[in-house]
């Protein structure tokens, strides 16, 4: 890959005007399609309901009315629950996923097949898994609780972290573990004291990615905990009432939801690419 990039940057091989223009247009399109909805939400969050009824106009009489309504309702509670679900999902995901990833990477557990098969659960659409999970949750009396949501989120997060970390562990020199064995460490101390410090960047990226997946997840949460244990996406979807969509408060709530996500993505994007690369190339 670096070789390709190298030829591109080589002097004398300047891209033609057409190619360069095309490239910029493509980037502009991509950026626009991501930014416009975000900007629109940011805009709408501070407009009055009256202004919002006329989507064509850009008049703004800045108001905190929407924010106030959001603060009064269930959004703060839902945020707290989402934070709890995200946090617990991430912690369990990290513990199970990193150990599984280490096992697959070092001991070839499950062979080459498992390395890739581990991602299969993430291919199954939530619509397929949601109702069996609901039936199960009802049976063991955890429906409409955060436990059910956490369990459902783990079906996505554990395979994802396992796969992600497998690549990171492959990059840790085996000699370091052999050195640790000579120095007198057992397998668990070797894992925690010697191996884990070498994959901290990957672990950090995994944590953020897992948290974001859980934080944004709507479908499982909606099916498994529609009542008192609503998470943030479920609570926001409730602004879509039978009286119509309450655009203002919904935009305000969305703004509050995406802000931490944008903030986090900013930090992890570099590591994320690194991790994906590590996992893919060394298969």
């Amino acid at each position, binding site marked *: 890959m670096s070789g390709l990039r190298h030829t591109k940057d080589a002097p004398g091989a300047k891209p033609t005007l057409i190619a360069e223009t095309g490239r910029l247009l493509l980037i502009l399109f991509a950026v626009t399609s991501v930014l416009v909805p975000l900007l629109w939400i940011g805009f709408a969050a501070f407009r009055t309901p009256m202004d919002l009824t006329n989507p064509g106009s850009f008049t703004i009489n800045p108001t905190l009315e929407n924010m106030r309504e959001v603060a009064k309702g269930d959004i703060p509670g839902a945020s707290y629950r989402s934070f709890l679900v995200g946090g617990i999902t991430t912690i369990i995901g990290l513990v199970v996923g990193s150990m599984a990833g280490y096992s697959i990477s070092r001991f070839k557990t499950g062979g080459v097949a498992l390395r890739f098969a581990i991602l299969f659960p993430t291919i199954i659409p939530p619509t397929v898994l949601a109702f069996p999970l609901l039936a199960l949750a009802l049976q063991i009396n955890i429906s409409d609780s955060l436990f059910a949501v956490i369990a459902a989120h783990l079906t996505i997060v554990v395979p994802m972290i396992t796969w992600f970390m497998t690549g990171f562990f492959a990059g840790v*020199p085996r000699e370091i573990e052999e050195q640790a064995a000579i120095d007198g460490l057992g397998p668990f101390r070797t894992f925690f004291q010697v191996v884990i410090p070498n994959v901290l960047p990957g672990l950090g990226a995994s944590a953020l990615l897992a948290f974001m997946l859980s934080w944004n997840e709507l479908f499982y949460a909606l099916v498994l905990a529609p009542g008192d244990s609503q998470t943030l996406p479920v609570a926001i979807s409730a602004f879509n009432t039978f009286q119509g969509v309450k655009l203002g408060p919904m935009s305000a709530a969305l703004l509050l939801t995406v802000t931490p996500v944008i903030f986090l993505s900013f930090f992890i994007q570099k590591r994320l690419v690194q991790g994906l690369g590590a996992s893919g190339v060394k298969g």
Partner: protein
Amino acid sequence: MASITFDNVVKNYGTFQAIRNVSFEIPDGEFAVIVGPSGSGKTTMLRSIGGLESISSGRILIGDRDVTNVAPKHRDIAFVFQNYALYAHLTVRANIGFPLKARKTPKAEIAERVEDVARRAGLEKLLDRKPAELSGGQQQRVAIARALVRQPSVFLFDEPMSNLDAQLRLDLRHEVLELQQSLGVTSVWVTHDQEEAMAMGDRILVVNHGIVEQNASPENLYSDPVNSYVAGAIGSPRMNMIQGHSANQVLTADGQNYPLFPGCPDGNIVAGIRPEDIHPVESGREGSFQAKVQLVELLGARAIVSLAVGDRRLNAVFSRRELGDIKELDTISVSMAKDRLLFFKPDNGERIRLAG
């Protein structure tokens, strides 16, 4: 302090035999070098001593203790890896102290011993750095210091200098030898570089295809190799090997005649002569033959002279005085030092020893 003994050791990887029934002993306090090409089994032998590799059959002893089934941490060894295997997240101080900390040594004692070892290895000023902030040579010093700190009874080195540049290798070579001599700890050093082996070893084990071809002092390997493999593997430039038919004190090879001397074996043989044992002589002298100078590589006090005898190339090393005004494309007379000729069987390379 302890000797190291291999007793009929075999190591199989599936159907591949990495170590084929090898026995040897490295006496207490010696610096032994295992030298061989890649894939010869030399690293596997070293890792077996360290317990990083389990063996398929046979026994390994450190001192009088059978360690065949003993875990690495209980073998009382220290291992220095080719890629240093430093703990990247720890400072130099913590890296060196790690083996002590892992064994629950009191903190004050750790601090004292780390300081002491760091001084010996010239690392006092670098103790608070992380490995990534050090040069390759410094990283290897840290790895060696970490090996020293526990005062083990055996040091094992796996090609520890192959990632360093030439000058640094020479420096570090001296330092390691001095440390080893002052500590008197039995050491095993693996390398593919025969020059490094000759320079460092009290004893050299020449390994090829999973067996030890010869286990002897550098002087003995050089002057008295047991077969043509060892003769070719030790010494640079390589020993010249002339395969031909010997009769009446003349070796005939590819239509060329090479004068031998009374007592030489008759029949199909391989004659081996080291480059430094070929000398220029005045023409017509008994035992001499003609050669054309193809290439002269001046190395200062000596020169490597590439000679053509018929279609055959022979390497010779002439001293500056011998070289005189010999230059490329000259035809000169040379002779082989009689008492330095070695003979081998052409089929298996075994040495043919002369009677008397």
